[in-house]
C-alpha cells in the first residue's frame, strides 16, 4: 500500500462495459482503470458480477457492449489463449493427469527455448512459490495450499502482464489463508505484475490491495484505496459491507466553515467535516455512522470529553484480546456496537452497567 501507484500508466481499462445473460443484466456500465503494477481487488457479495468482470479480462466471457482494453489494446477479438493474462482459478484447475512440473510447464509448449532451459524455468518458478523439489510429484497428491502454489507458478512462469486471481484463498483454512495473503503480497511486489483479485472477503481485500472496487448488482459502488474505503465509505451499503458500522438517525441543521452541524440520536449535536460526508445531502434527514473501534467506553475517573454521551450495556461478547459491547445509548432503541481492547487492568463490564461513551474526532461519517 506504500507504492505510489497513482501516476502509473493504466494496464486495464473498462469503458462502459455491459454484459447481459439473456434478460439478466450482469454488468451495468463498468468504467474503471486498473494501473500497471497495482494489486487491485474486485470485492462484493456473490452475484455482484465481480467474477464475470474478471472473466471478461481473461477472455472467457464476452461483453455485450463497451470495451475492455489491456495495455492499450482492444481485446474484443482477442481469444483467451492470446491475451497477456493468466489466471489462478478458484478450483486451481490443476491438471490431474500431469505431474507438478508438467503442470507448471504446460504453457511453455511453444516457447522457443531449449528443453533444458524450460526445465530450469520450471524449477525456478517452483522455487519462487516455495515448492522446490516437488516437481516430480503427482498433481493429485498435493494439498490445497500446494495446489494453489502450483497454480501460481504455472501462471507466473508465462510472465503475464496481468495475473487474475479468482477467489484463490477461499478453499484454504484460516491460518493457511492468512499466510498465503502475506505471501501473495510479497510475490506481487517481487514480480511487479498487475494482480487483479476477486474476493467476497472484505478483510482479505483490505489486507492485500492497493485499491479496491466494491461491486453491487453489476455496478462499482466505490473504487478507492483500503483506508478511504474503510474510513469514508460513500454509502451505507459500502459501509455495511466493509467491516461493521453503526448507524444512528440524524438531522442536518446546517453547514458552516467546512463543518456540517448535525443533531444525531444518542449523540446530541455534533459537527462533521464535509469530507466525512461523501455524497451526503446538506439538509434534511440523514444517518451518522461510526466504526465500533472509534467509540470508547469511559471508565470511572477518566476525564470527561466534549464528545461524550451516556448509555447502558446491553450485551457483552468476550473475544480474549477484545471485548465487544452492545451499548444502548440514551434516547436510542437499537444498541450500537463498541469494541474495546482488553488492556491490562481494564475490567470487562457487566450487562446493565451504566457507562459514559466518548467518540474520537473524525470518527463520524454522514450518510444520506
Amino acid at each position: 500500500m506504500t507504492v505510489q501507484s497513482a501516476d502509473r500508466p493504466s494496464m486495464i481499462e473498462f469503458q462502459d462495459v455491459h454484459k447481459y445473460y439473456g434478460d439478466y443484466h450482469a454488468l451495468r456500465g463498468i468504467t474503471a482503470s486498473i494501473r500497471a503494477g497495482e494489486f487491485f481487488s474486485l470485492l462484493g457479495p456473490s452475484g455482484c458480477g465481480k467474477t464475470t468482470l474478471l472473466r471478461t479480462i481473461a477472455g472467457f466471457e464476452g461483453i455485450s457492449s463497451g470495451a475492455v482494453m489491456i495495455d492499450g489494446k482492444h481485446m474484443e477479438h482477442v481469444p483467451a489463449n492470446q491475451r497477456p493474462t493468466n489466471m489462478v482459478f478458484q478450483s486451481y484447475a490443476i491438471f490431474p493427469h500431469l505431474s507438478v512440473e508438467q503442470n507448471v510447464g504446460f504453457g511453455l509448449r511453444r516457447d522457443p527455448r531449449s528443453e533444458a532451459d524450460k526445465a530450469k524455468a520450471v524449477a525456478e518458478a517452483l522455487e519462487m512459490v516455495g515448492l522446490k523439489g516437488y516437481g516430480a510429484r503427482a498433481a493429485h497428491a498435493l494439498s490445497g495450499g500446494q495446489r494453489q502454489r502450483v497454480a501460481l507458478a504455472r501462471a507466473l512462469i508465462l510472465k503475464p502482464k496481468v495475473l487474475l486471481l479468482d477467489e484463490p484463498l477461499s478453499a484454504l483454512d484460516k491460518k493457511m489463508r492468512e499466510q498465503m495473503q502475506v505471501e501473495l503480497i510479497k510475490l506481487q511486489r517481487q514480480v511487479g505484475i498487475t494482480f487483479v483479485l476477486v474476493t467476497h472477503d472484505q478483510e482479505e481485500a483490505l489486507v492485500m490491495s492497493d485499491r479496491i472496487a466494491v461491486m453491487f448488482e453489476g455496478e462499482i459502488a466505490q473504487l478507492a484505496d483500503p483506508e478511504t474505503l474503510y474510513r469514508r465509505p460513500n454509502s451505507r451499503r459500502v459501509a455495511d459491507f466493509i467491516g461493521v458500522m453503526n448507524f444512528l438517525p440524524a438531522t442536518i441543521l446546517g453547514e458552516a466553515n467546512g463543518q456540517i452541524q448535525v443533531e444525531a440520536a444518542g449523540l446530541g449535536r455534533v459537527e462533521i467535516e464535509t469530507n466525512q460526508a461523501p455524497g451526503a445531502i446538506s439538509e434534511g434527514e440523514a444517518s451518522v455512522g461510526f466504526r465500533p473501534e472509534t467509540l470508547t467506553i469511559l471508565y470511572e475517573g477518566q476525564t470527561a470529553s466534549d464528545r461524550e454521551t451516556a448509555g447502558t450495556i446491553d450485551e457483552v461478547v468476550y473475544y480474549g484480546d477484545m471485548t465487544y459491547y452492545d451499548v444502548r445509548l440514551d434516547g436510542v432503541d437499537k444498541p450500537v456496537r463498541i469494541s474495546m481492547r482488553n488492556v491490562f487492568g481494564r475490567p470487562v463490564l457487566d450487562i446493565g452497567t451504566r457507562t459514559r461513551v466518548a467518540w474520537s474526532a473524525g470518527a463520524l461519517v454522514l450518510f444520506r
Partner: protein
Amino acid sequence: MDWKSRLRRVTRTEAFSGYALVSPTALYAILMLAAPLATILAFSFFKDGYLVVVREFTLQNYIDTWSDEIFRAILMRSLIVSGLVTLVTVLLAFPIAYYVSFHVEASKKSRWLFLITIPFWTSYLIRVFLWKVILGYNGVVNSALLGVGIIDTPFQMLNNVPAIAITLAHAYAPFAILPIFVSLEKIDRALLEAGQDLGESKMMTFLRVTLPLAMPGVVAAVLIVFIPTIGDYVTPELIGGGKLPMVANMIQAQMLPLDNKPLGSAIAVSAMVVVALISFGFVFMNRRFLRGQK
C-alpha cells in the same frame, strides 16, 4: 462371553455387513460363472471318447486346436472383426458422448442418455434381424436405391465382414457411449479454461487435457466392446450367413453337432486366454491414463 454375544459382535462389524451385501451376487456368480468356467477348463484337459468325456489328463486338445489352420484363421477373423467393431464403435461413440457431456444443457442430459439406451428396448436377436432386413438383398437399402433409380441390381450387403461390423457396432454403441460420457462428465470445466488461459487453442486443449482425462472411459469402452464381440455367436450366424464363422460358432460346432466337448472346451479356453492377453496388454499400454486421479 457366550456364543450369542460373540456372534453379535461378528455380525455387527462393517466387513460382515459388506460380505452380507455381496453374498447373493457372489453366490450366483460362483455357481453360474466360476463353476461352468472350471468345468470348461477341466474338460479341455480330458480325452474325448465317442459321445462321452473320458476323464484322463491330456494336452492333445490344445495341440489339436493350435495346430489347426482353420482355428487360427477363424480366431484371426474374430480378432479382426471385433477389433474393427471396437474401433468403429468407440470412434462413433466419442463424439456423441462429447456432445452430450459438453453441449447438452445439464437439465436435458438425462433425456439424451435415455434416448441412447433405446436400442436396449428390443432384444438383441431382433435388432440383429432388423439389420438383416435393412441390409438384405430385398432389404430397405436396396429397395430404396432401386426405387430412386441409383442402381439397377441390388447390392450384396450381407454375408460379409462390414455387415457384421455395422450390426455389432450398433448393438454395442450404448456400452461405449456411457463410460466415455461418465469420464467426460468428471472433467472439471475449469481445466479446459486453464488450458486456453495457458495459451493453447481449443483443439490443443482437447488433445492435451480433455482426451487424456477421458482415456479411462475410452479404455473401459474398448474393453466392454472388444471382449463380448469376439465371442459373439448370433451376428456371424445371421448377418454373416454362416459363411464367416467366428470363434464362438466354431466352439458351438464342436460342442453340439460334433459332440467333441474337450476340443470345444480347449478352443474356448484358448480364445479366452488370447482375449485376456490382448486386454491386459491394452490396459498396460494405457496404464498412465488409469492412475488414480482426483
